[in-house]
């Protein structure tokens, strides 16, 4: 029996910020009517957090709910619990028009941390990352240089980034360049 391996096997880099591929993270896409009581129940029971409002991420350790679009949330859970969580969600959603898919192994997850984390990401994404504009608890789907990505903040100096597994090396290289020594801008 082979063990699941994350895209870059916990590669790490330290420059003006710490960058690390975080290893395996369970991720389940849930699409449906987010106002439906049944969908809300399935999502919140699976993640153990409240339903996120538009543009929010509710994270509690390895669990969480991220608002992806008006009809989609991303359910986070430990990688080993994905199958069990999906089974439980499908039971709640029986008869409801909704979609539950395991996307854990289609994604890669990075953490960028340090006092200059905002700067590292600002160089790559067309997003206002000033401390008053982007705060922990918010969720943003956007692009990093040429590829789609999504991120939220774990605390005021730590970003968690999700991208497609196929571009994991590209995103890691981007972050390394963006965080190379001597590249501080000092804008925030």
């Amino acid at each position, binding site marked *: 029996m082979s063990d699941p391996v994350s895209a870059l096997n916990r590669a790490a880099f330290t420059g003006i910020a710490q960058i690390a591929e975080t290893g395996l993270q369970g991720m389940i896409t849930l699409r449906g009517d987010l106002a439906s009581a049944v969908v809300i129940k399935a999502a919140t029971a699976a993640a153990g957090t409240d339903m996120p409002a538009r543009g929010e991420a509710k994270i509690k350790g390895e669990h969480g709910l991220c608002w992806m679009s008006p009809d989609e949330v991303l359910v986070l859970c430990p990688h080993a619990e994905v199958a069990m969580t999906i089974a439980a969600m499908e039971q709640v959603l029986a008869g409801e028009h909704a979609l539950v898919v395991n996307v854990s192994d289609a994604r890669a997850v990075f953490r960028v941390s340090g006092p200059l984390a905002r700067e590292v990401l600002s160089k790559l994404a*067309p997003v206002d990352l000033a401390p008053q504009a982007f705060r922990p608890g918010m969720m943003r789907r956007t692009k990093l240089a040429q590829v789609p990505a999504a991120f939220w903040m774990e605390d005021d100096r730590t970003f968690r980034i999700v991208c497609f597994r196929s571009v994991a090396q590209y995103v890691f290289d981007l972050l390394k360049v963006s965080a190379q020594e001597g590249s501080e801008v000092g804008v925030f």
Partner: protein
Amino acid sequence: MLILQCPCCGVMADETELAAGGEAHLKRFGPGSSDDDFESYLFNRVNPKGVHFERWRHAYGCGKWFHAARCTATLEVFGTYSAQVTEPPQEIRDKISARRPGWRWREFG
């Protein structure tokens, strides 16, 4: 640089995050219509200098379509609104009238 607020997710989205979808509020002429109407539906587009209505998709964000009203000459954005309408809402028309009195765009104005 064009920045549009996506009405679906509320994000101020940079042009590079969006996919352009061409002219808005086209009336479809399908099977059974006259050749002239069908040709016009397929090929004829306005190319105004000034007020224009367009479709955009928040491709790198929430993935949803929406409408935008803007000025092609100054890049001023008058507003964005839902994709699920067949004509610009009154609120958007009022905003344009305030900035460009006497504007016309196809049958609207």
